[in-house]
């Protein structure tokens, strides 16, 4: 007995305690890297944006209707880029929301466990395909079909990017909505069935309204994803910033503009270099607001049913 107690000497304990403290400190620093990333993003974007607004008035940036920073006669109105971004995003939502919501209702209310196990991973594959592949598909498969259907369609156009993006976002819309629908307590479904409601009436008139805030969170998240998506629009939607609501025309999104400038050889101090940070700042602010709204809606929704 005495030997065992000797082997558990205080020296050993001190060493273990030191190791524990070192690991705790190290992992804490690792966790802080995420905070550092956010801070770094805001710092870098803000730094160049401030420099940008020393040369361009903030009023021109938000009110001018032309965006030509790469031309000889430079104009810095971001509206055409925002217009292009929202046009493509709206088109993508037109595809992703109805399909995603229907898919979510089917998976959560109708599909058997076995069916769900097969269908969900297949849908996940859609989300896992690199966006550059969707860009290829939009430009070389969807666009030719659109041009057959509507001859006035331009080679680069918002619609083909929207369609490809819609299918890319579908799994996100479906899976977040399905989580919300599944979180609706059984007791509500039972109450509905006990009144003689059919499965359809229960799903659409009881479960869906009860899950509405969760579905709204899914919607906002999907819009945010659509606004920030880059490669599909860089490949298929074109490089012509213009204020149009015609999806068959060539447009330019904020993300595609950043890619366009990055591909060229832009000197560090030039105004063109600063524009991509100003546009990036606006993009970051838009997605951040949406992500935060979605985060808090989801949180409140979870609390409601826990």
């Amino acid at each position: 007995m005495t030997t065992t107690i000797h082997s558990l000497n205080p020296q050993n304990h001190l060493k273990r305690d030191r190791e524990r403290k070192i690991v705790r400190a190290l992992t804490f620093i690792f966790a802080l890297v995420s905070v550092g990333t956010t801070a770094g993003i805001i710092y870098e974007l803000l730094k160049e944006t401030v420099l940008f607004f020393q040369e361009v008035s903030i009023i021109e940036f938000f009110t001018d209707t032309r965006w030509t920073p790469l031309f000889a006669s430079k104009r810095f109105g971001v509206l055409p880029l925002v217009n292009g971004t929202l046009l493509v995003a709206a088109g993508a939502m037109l595809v992703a929301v109805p399909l995603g919501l229907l898919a979510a209702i089917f998976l959560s209310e109708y599909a058997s466990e076995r069916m769900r196990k097969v269908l969900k991973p297949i849908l996940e594959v859609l989300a896992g395909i690199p966006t550059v592949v969707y860009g290829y598909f939009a430009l070389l498969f969807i666009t030719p079909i659109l041009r057959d259907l509507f001859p006035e369609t331009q080679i680069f156009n918002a619609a083909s990017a929207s369609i490809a993006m819609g299918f890319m976002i579908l799994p996100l819309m479906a899976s977040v909505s399905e989580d919300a629908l599944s979180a609706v307590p059984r007791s509500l479904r039972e109450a509905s069935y006990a009144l003689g409601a059919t499965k359809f009436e229960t799903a659409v008139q009881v479960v869906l309204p009860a899950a509405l805030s969760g579905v709204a969170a899914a919607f906002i998240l999907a819009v945010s994803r659509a606004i920030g998506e880059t490669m599909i629009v860089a490949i298929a939607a074109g490089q012509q910033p213009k204020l149009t609501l015609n999806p068959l025309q060539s447009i330019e999104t904020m993300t595609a503009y950043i890619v366009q400038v990055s591909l060229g050889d832009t000197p560090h101090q030039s105004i063109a270099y600063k524009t991509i940070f100003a546009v990036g700042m606006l993009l970051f602010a838009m997605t951040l607001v949406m992500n935060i709204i979605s985060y808090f809606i989801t949180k409140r929704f979870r609390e409601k049913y826990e």
Partner: protein
Amino acid sequence: MDNNHNTVLETKNLNIYYGDFLAIKDVNFKVFRHQITAIIGPSGCGKSTLLRSFNRMNELVPSARSEGKILFNGEDIYDPSIDPVEVRRRIGMVFQKPNPFPKSIYENIAWGLKINGFRGSKSELDDLVEQALRGAALWDEVKDKLDQSGLSLSGGQQQRLCIARAIAIKPEVILMDEPASALDPIATLKIEDLMRELKENYTIVIVTHNMQEAARVSDYTAMMMLTGDEERSGTVIEFDQTNVIFTRPKDKRTEDYITGRFG
């Protein structure tokens, strides 16, 4: 016991399985019109399962299946030609925990009427909602806030709202699964008073683990116990008028249970 012409529900050799597990074994008993029938027994003996078989709510569990018959006014509700939706419209249910829809008080009541094909005017609908709320002794408490969420009510009020929701579509039978177990004693008494009133127009089957409650409100009582090889399947061991069950039970196990000598 012999008023056969007044039988509303009758089970015949009813077995209920979950997968391979026999949860309810060989149940035979009757529910009489405009009477309150209580199902009592120790926890886990299948009271709720039996109750849920009366409006085919059991089927919502994918592995559940049943054998035997449940006759509703002489018709087998498990006949393949019968739609469970129709069964549930005629046999309503009130659950253990109040579960109002997250809609307004008014909509909670009106929704059942709407889906079940109500085609009258708005004022007729208003009347029916009021009637249901009065029937559930809730009208005076909520008449000024019908557009507030059902979730804003107290637990006891929520449960009466659920009862109002059930009676709004005029079912013949109301199944109640321990309707007062989540409520305080005062709310419980209100629900019990309400049940006695509802008896005038409806047939009530109530599951309860509270023997005083069964003795207070019910006319007939079915005593359930676990039986079978390993005492895992529930069955009705005795069924009679409540005063008979509580004063001179025939089965020794019933006597042990109601006198608290069980287990």
